[in-house]
């Protein structure tokens, strides 16, 4: 216990003796860890949102109506369409499908967009349709192709909302990649700064190291205070980042009116898990930075 206390006091003594570089290293870790935290939160939210979006992808088969085609689809044509849907369903590609009549579609639109329906003044331009939910969101395109080839008579249009989601996901991926790149650069910078801090620390304490070696301190006794110093740097920076991230979550996001509510099943990783990962990364950075320097500059 006495020995542990001595090691801790040596590490604190070392931190005090070159406070400015220690603070600089801690601040870099802090920024790096904060961005890492944001990246984890945003990244996990995006993955969750993308899964949610995939679940919401549906294929619509719109039948011809008097407003959109020369002649509206006949019952026979609709039955043929259902036969085709059943065929596709037998391949396991479809989770569920439903016939939505013109009237039902109007009711849904009245509910979802009352202003729009009011503007139409009682005219219902919506066609009869089939709403098909794929088993997997990715199969929406395949289902649409199978419905189109060979073309079905009486069908005006087959559409699915995958393109929109793909575009959004592409943008999300670019943002995520930029964040990750920034995080990587900051992690490397943090490691280099911790390594430099420890190097300065070794230099400022060279007399103590010399005396330690002369009086028979073991290699680990000489190294451990520096290891502790590096870990304190990493841990301190990460803790500051966790504090800032929680302030951002609790105070800044509501104040800026940033609403990430895209559905009840869309959410980022739990805050506790993100915080744990940040602290762990901070500690790993501290250990790597110190390890590099001790190997190169502390011959005991």
């Amino acid at each position, binding site marked *: 216990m*006495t*020995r542990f206390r*001595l090691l801790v006091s040596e590490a604190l003594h070392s931190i005090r003796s070159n406070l400015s570089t220690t603070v600089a290293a801690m601040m870099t870790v802090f920024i790096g860890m904060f961005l890492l935290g944001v990246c984890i939160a945003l990244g996990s939210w995006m993955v969750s949102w993308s899964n949610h979006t995939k679940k919401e992808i549906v294929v619509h088969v719109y039948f011809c109506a008097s407003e959109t085609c020369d002649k509206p689809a006949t019952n026979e044509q609709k039955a043929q369409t259902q036969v085709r849907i059943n065929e596709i369903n037998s391949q396991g590609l479809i989770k569920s499908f439903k016939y939505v009549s013109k009237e039902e579609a109007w009711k849904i639109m009245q509910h979802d967009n009352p202003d729009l329906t009011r503007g139409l003044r009682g005219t219902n331009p919506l066609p009869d349709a089939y709403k098909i939910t794929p088993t997997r969101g990715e199969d929406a395109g395949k289902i649409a192709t199978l419905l189109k080839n060979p073309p079905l008579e009486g069908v005006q249009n087959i559409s699915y909302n995958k393109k929109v989601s793909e575009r959004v996901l592409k943008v999300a991926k670019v943002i995520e990649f930029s964040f990750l790149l920034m995080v990587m650069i900051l992690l490397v910078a943090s490691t280099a700064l911790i390594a430099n801090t420890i190097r300065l620390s070794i230099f400022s304490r060279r*007399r*103590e190291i*010399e*005396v*330690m*070696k*002369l*009086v*028979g*301190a*073991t*290699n680990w*006794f000489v190294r451990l205070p520096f290891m502790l110093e590096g870990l304190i740097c990493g841990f301190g920076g990460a803790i500051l980042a966790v504090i800032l991230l929680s302030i951002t979550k609790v105070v800044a996001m509501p104040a800026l009116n940033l609403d990430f509510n895209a559905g009840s099943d869309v959410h980022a990783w739990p805050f506790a898990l993100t915080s744990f990962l940040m602290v762990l990364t901070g500690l790993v950075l501290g250990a790597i930075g110190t390890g590099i320097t001790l190997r190169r500059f502390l011959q005991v």
Partner: protein
Amino acid sequence: MTPAQDVDLDTQNPSALPAPDAAATVSAGAMIVCHGVTKLYDPNVLALDNVSFQIDKGEFVFIVGASGSGKSTLIRLLLKEMEPTRGTIIVGGRDISRLRPSRVSQLRRNIGCVFQDFKLLPNRSAAENVAYALNVQGESHQNIRRKVPEVLSLVGLVDKMDSLPNQLSGGEQQRVSIARAFVNHPPLLVCDEPTGNLDPDTSVGIMQLLYSINRTGTTILVVTHDREMVDKMRRRVIALEDGKIARDERRGGYSSQ
């Protein structure tokens, strides 16, 4: 004065040092044996050239010689700060060239070191400087509290325990350094120019202190330029010249007679 431990390096830390080279002839009473020791620095600077000598337990030996004669190299080899290019160095009956790096600390715990520049930690008091040596060796708090005043009273500084090095005179600082080196009662004390920064009167006090430590059974090896002191004490003198032993006299002076 507390007598130096009756044991040698061998029995203090039997596992710390490897077995002696069977080829080297070592007498049971030898503390240091150098056998054909050569040290070559890059590029081709010969610091020690085939040096052989034996120092027995309890001896008081001066190593003298001009600057660059190889005295400091010899000390660094004894402390295993570097390796000889050739030859064997046996300390306390064990060949230190076979010592694993992890065991070097054990060797150094059995060799007290005193230097010309004292090597004290400036921001720690005299007592803390002495306690530091015990702390790094993992000594218990209770033992440290007992041993530190004891050894500081031995060197005559019990009333200056709380003084920082810059509040002490050169002689007092060297006494603290000796106290730190002797606090564990090592069987061997190596002193590199212990009076180099001190005036003649203070030097006499330091030598008297080393002599009294020697009388407890501790082997003392003093590297010095202090002609007056060597001539006064008439102890064994090993003179080095250009890395070779020029003279080894039982009761010698600084210069050859």
